[in-house]
């Protein structure tokens, strides 16, 4: 894949969702309306039919921003038509390591999300909406609560949206700390007041979701795009980004970069531009080594492989990874890849809900073997077993949580095999000491996972 820009051209942000992001008081309805907010909602309810809306969304080719990248319009069109209780759930359980875009969108511009949800509700024919926000996001949930109350007051929510007689109710539902609840069917179970275990699919939520009714589930960023698409049209939206990845994307950049943060870019700009021009390049003296292009569940790309690729759904997939949630975690040369793999595996082990054996056991054993590697107690067989365990997890569970560990761990082993071999032959990572900057050995081998093995969420 050729680079899309010459080196001299500096990558800059293209702000649509992040426009006015730091305008004082934007989270209040008065400021949001002063800046043109809720005009799209009025347009959607007074000038457009649900069919018009759906057609516009499909034409925009907006792809889901939560991880899977599925066409939002198509997903909405799967819901059956007709008079019945239908639900819209906003997935705000943002928990993928490296991802923090929805946090900023909800905290600073909650009305953009609410407006997008009420529009999506009309397109899908849903009358009850929920925002499932992770329990750790207290500030953001409080902000949303206030914004929802304002929207009710202003008549954008409730029994008679904009005087059209349409009813849309919206509830902010706080989770309580479980990564798995970001998986859409686990989210539904959790919203129904149960332990957040994923469901067997099919039936898909569009047919049988929340309370057994047809349900549309979309990410915060996806829904936040809707007011803009309704205001300016699908064609305008498609003028941003690439053919297969239209629009902009809020990218969370973190790790060993000088200026970590959220940057809204046009999809298709070079990765190098995001990391160097926007996030300021390497934070330390060491050169960059590799990066996760789409959260910790995406297979890492080495700097040589990935820096000059365009940042788009298709280019990341072609490179054997994925754009995922759009979160770039950057690691420099001082990072121990063995420790990195262990950190990844520990997360998925901790968050495995325990329902499916390959995931529950596979994540557990992967952590144990990687710990042995890190502590210098591993044999070459351990490394072989790590590889084969990943293969046995992939595709064998109800949801992709296990796969989300298998993919990055496999990629790390495949791409940095000599480092793993060295950990075996040299007796661990840095002799199990901590490197100067803490990138090396396991400084706190007993870092608390107080709930222990197999604990949920």
């Amino acid at each position, binding site marked *: 894949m050729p680079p*899309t*820009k010459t080196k001299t051209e500096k990558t800059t*942000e*293209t*702000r*649509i969702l*992040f426009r006015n992001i*730091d305008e004082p008081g934007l989270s209040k309805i008065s400021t949001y309306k*002063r800046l*043109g*907010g809720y*005009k799209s909602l009025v347009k959607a309810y007074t000038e457009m039919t649900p069919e018009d809306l759906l057609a516009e969304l499909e034409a925009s080719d907006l792809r889901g921003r939560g991880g899977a990248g599925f066409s939002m319009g198509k997903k909405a069109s799967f819901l059956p038509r007709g008079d019945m209780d239908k639900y819209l759930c906003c997935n705000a359980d943002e*928990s993928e*390591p*490296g*991802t*923090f875009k929805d*946090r900023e969108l909800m905290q600073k511009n909650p009305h953009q999300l609410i407006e997008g949800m009420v529009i999506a509700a009309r397109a899908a024919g849903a009358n009850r909406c929920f925002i499932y926000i992770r*329990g*750790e*996001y207290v500030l953001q949930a409080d902000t949303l609560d206030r914004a929802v109350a304002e929207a009710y007051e202003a008549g954008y929510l409730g029994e008679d949206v904009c005087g059209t007689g349409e009813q849309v109710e919206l*509830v902010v*539902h*706080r989770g309580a*700390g479980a*990564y798995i609840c970001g998986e859409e069917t686990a989210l539904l179970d959790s919203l*129904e*007041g*149960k*332990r957040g275990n994923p469901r067997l699919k099919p039936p898909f939520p569009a047919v049988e979701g929340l309370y057994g009714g047809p349900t549309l589930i979309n990410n915060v960023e996806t829904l936040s795009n809707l007011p*803009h698409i309704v*205001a300016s049209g699908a064609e305008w939206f498609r003028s*941003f980004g*690439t053919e297969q990845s239209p629009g902009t994307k809020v990218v969370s950049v973190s*790790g*060993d970069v000088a*200026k*970590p*943060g959220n940057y*809204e870019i*046009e999809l*298709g700009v070079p990765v190098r531009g995001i990391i160097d021009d*926007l996030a300021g390049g390497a934070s330390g003296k060491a050169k960059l080594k590799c990066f*996760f292009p789409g959260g910790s569940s995406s297979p890492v790309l080495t700097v040589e492989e990935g820096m000059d690729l365009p940042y*788009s759904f298709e280019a990341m997939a072609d490179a054997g990874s994925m754009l995922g949630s759009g979160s770039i*975690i950057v690691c420099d040369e001082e*990072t121990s890849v063995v420790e*990195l793999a262990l*950190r*990844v595996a520990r*997360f998925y082990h901790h*968050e495995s809900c325990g329902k499916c054996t390959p995931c529950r056991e596979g994540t557990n054993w992967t952590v144990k073997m990687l710990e042995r590697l890190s502590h210098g107690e591993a044999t070459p067989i351990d490394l072989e077993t790590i590889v084969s365990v990943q293969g046995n997890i992939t595709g064998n569970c109800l949801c992709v949580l296990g796969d989300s560990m298998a993919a990055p761990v496999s990629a790390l082993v495949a791409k940095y095999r000599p480092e793993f071999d060295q950990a075996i032959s040299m007796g661990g990572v840095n002799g199990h000491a901590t490197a100067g900057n803490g990138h090396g050995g*396991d*400084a706190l081998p*007993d*870092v*608390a996972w*107080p709930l222990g093995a197999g604990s*949920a*969420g």
Partner: protein
Amino acid sequence: MSAASDKAGEGMFPQEVDLERVLDERGFTPEIAEIDLDQAKTGSVGREPAPVPEPGEVEVPEKLRREIERAMAKYPEVKSASIPALWAVQREYGWCSPEGIHQAAAVLGVTPGYLQSVATFYDLFHTEPTGEHQVLVCTNISCWLRGADEMLQEMCEQAGTAPGETSEDGKLFVRGFECLGACDLAPMASIDGEYFGPLEPGEGAEAIAQLCAGEKVLPKRRLEDRGAAGGKRAGADRRTSSHPMNKTKAKPRAKKTGKA
């Protein structure tokens, strides 16, 4: 209620466990837990899970009842209020105590076992007594790359506790936590629900000291006060000017964009 009945049954308590002590530590009495100690010691509990409490027979603090009932009214199905109800219990008692769970179950009309099964699933619910102040230090990849392990250690040392444990005076609970969704603040911590970062070495200890002294914690490190990373004026694009949200803005800077 299947989750509860799965757990009950034979061999639930190994014989070497001092059941009375275990119950006492968790704030149970054998009566609340509905356990026959003699029977339990023989290895067979042999009882049905506790039924749905009779609403009239359980005394519920008025505030707790109101909060749970308000949550119940929001959902088409009452059970959806389970997590909000557990939050309310935790606010009332500081943790999801058996007493609180029993009361919430009475208001919701579910079995205590059911609520217990939900409470144990989620990381933020405490099913054991915990410290007055909650300090969660993110130790996931991005924070780890920027010194989170050292930050956790620093905070634990200052608090005089180990990760995942409560300090002796009951004031502080410090633990490492999975990604809190604030990698731009790395290394960071959530202190009593509020996010702080990026933390310089020494600031973790400072935060703990401030908590103990009842002072405002790290006023310069609050997430709430942070602007977007790209600055205020980043990214104006001519094509966005057709959107009504742009009309009140200053003249956008022209920007060349490249497409694949």
